[in-house]
């Protein structure tokens, strides 16, 4: 008996988990993300401009936050940040759902369809606005106005007159494939037996979709939209290349606002304060995601 117990203990100690395995990841991420985040918080409390080295590095408390919060440009940037992530999240959910439903019914050529539908997601965020701004939305030479005027509509200049819509158009184009991907996962896990049973009971395709498929997709839609909101929130390329935040600062978001404060005005304290506000907004969405996903994960790990 004793021998068996000892063998068991020995086996168990052999089966002990690798102790240091997570350390490299933890240390690396702490050093490159958490320490800089703390440093950002620290710098946000100081007044410091790199262009004027003679001026002292001076503690100013929450003045930087007060300054940016009372700045009209900052407020509109914060608003745009919300707009640019919420509207595309919904639009891509709609488009992605349509695409996923189509592809899911496809019986041949799936590989080709995936490749084509996925392509916009592979395009660089600086090439995307080059295509849209020049070749499609350009008021004189662009394809959109060529199409509009040849059908007798009036020409439009989105980049100057509706820069926010132009930026969102680029985001939606790029991110619809992402949503399609997530919803496809949902569709492929719909229980086909339930669908068949419903069909036998006389439910039409629309009712099947409304009462079986759609409820099944709700968690996928929710998680997909939350992840998208988090990933689009710091969108940068389409603004930098597409509109440079303009005209004026109509299409500036927080990411771009901070970038300009940092690289054009060299106002370290204010840039840091702006960065913290952005981090705070992301954290809110992240908490929502966590609260939603956590119960699933806990259930799974039991």
């Amino acid at each position: 008996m004793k021998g068996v117990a000892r063998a068991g203990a020995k086996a168990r100690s052999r089966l002990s988990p690798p102790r240091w395995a997570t350390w490299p990841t933890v240390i690396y991420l702490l050093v490159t993300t958490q320490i800089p985040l703390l440093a950002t918080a620290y710098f946000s409390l100081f007044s410091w401009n790199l262009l004027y080295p003679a001026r002292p590095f001076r503690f100013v408390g929450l003045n930087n936050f007060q300054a940016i919060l009372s700045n009209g440009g900052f407020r509109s940037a914060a608003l745009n940040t919300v707009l640019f992530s919420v509207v595309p999240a919904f639009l891509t959910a709609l488009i992605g759902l349509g695409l996923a439903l189509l592809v899911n019914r496809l019986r041949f050529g799936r590989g080709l369809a995936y490749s084509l539908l996925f392509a916009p997601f592979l395009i660089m965020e600086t090439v995307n606005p080059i295509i849209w701004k020049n070749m499609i939305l350009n008021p004189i030479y662009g394809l959109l106005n060529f199409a509009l005027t040849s059908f007798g509509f009036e020409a439009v200049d989105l980049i100057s007159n509706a820069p926010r819509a132009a930026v969102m158009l680029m985001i939606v184009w790029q991110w619809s494939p992402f949503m399609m991907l997530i919803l496809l996962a949902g569709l492929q896990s719909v229980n086909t037996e339930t669908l068949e049973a419903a069909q036998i009971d006389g439910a039409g395709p629309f009712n099947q979709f409304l009462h079986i498929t759609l409820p099944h997709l709700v968690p996928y839609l929710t998680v997909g939209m939350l992840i998208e909101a988090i990933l689009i929130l710091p969108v940068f390329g389409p603004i930098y290349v597409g509109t440079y935040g303009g005209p004026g600062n109509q299409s500036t978001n927080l990411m771009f606002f901070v970038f300009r404060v940092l690289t054009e005005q060299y106002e370290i304290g204010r840039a840091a304060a702006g960065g913290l506000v952005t981090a705070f907004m992301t954290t809110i969405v992240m908490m929502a995601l966590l609260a939603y996903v956590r119960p699933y994960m806990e259930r799974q790990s039991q």
Partner: protein
Amino acid sequence: MKARRRHGLLVAIATFAVALLLCFPILWLFFTSLKTESDAIATPPTLFVPLSFEHYRQALSGEYPHFLKNTVIVTAASIAIAFLLGLPAAYKLAFFPGRKANDFLFFVLSTRFMPGVAVIVPIFLLYTRIGLIDTLPGLVLMYTTLNLPIVVWLMRSFFKDVPYELIEASLLEGASHSRILWETVLPLSKAGLATTAFLLIILTWNEFFFAVNLSGHQAATLPVFMASFFTSEGQSWARMSAAAFLAVLPVLLLGWVASRALVKNVLAGAVK
């Protein structure tokens, strides 16, 4: 049966019509890159004009190779380091999760979701001070940060496909964890490794925010090159299109080859 087949054909036509519409901007970019400058901006848009690869020849003999080289180096190095650091963590989380596993996973994820502006100020200051600004190692350091969480999350879910009994048996034979990871688990997770690497290549290749903040000319990657090309020569549509198409081509080709596997594997990984 006949109605069903017709239905299938309709679905196929609709799908490919939509797919082509979605891809149209990319196809048009390629088409424009083959035209002469005056044909490229002609209105109404020209269709039947002489085409040539002249702009590609120009682009390739210009600065493009320098930025391509930077992008390849930065992408490859940051992905390799991320795997090196993250695989042991993924192994532990997959087979010996322990009570804190979910907290750990969420911490890792939260670092990936943090926007660049939250950390750029001190990183920028530090890089300027210690001479990492506009260097490839400087970019590699930050890209490793972006790639590491994805390695941990995805590889953990792929490792879960390997039966735990296999690990247990090897442990009882006295194998060390690093040997099991290297000789048992990784060979069984090749598809997962490829999928993860593929996703990381797309994301790193296209990253712009850190690249534009932390590099000038020396270490600039292709996204930065495209942005500056647009600023300096935005009027030469055909030349710019050629450069832009060259910049996205490697990832597009990779996507063409691997998108199906990606759809299947990432989905499987994400759902688990």
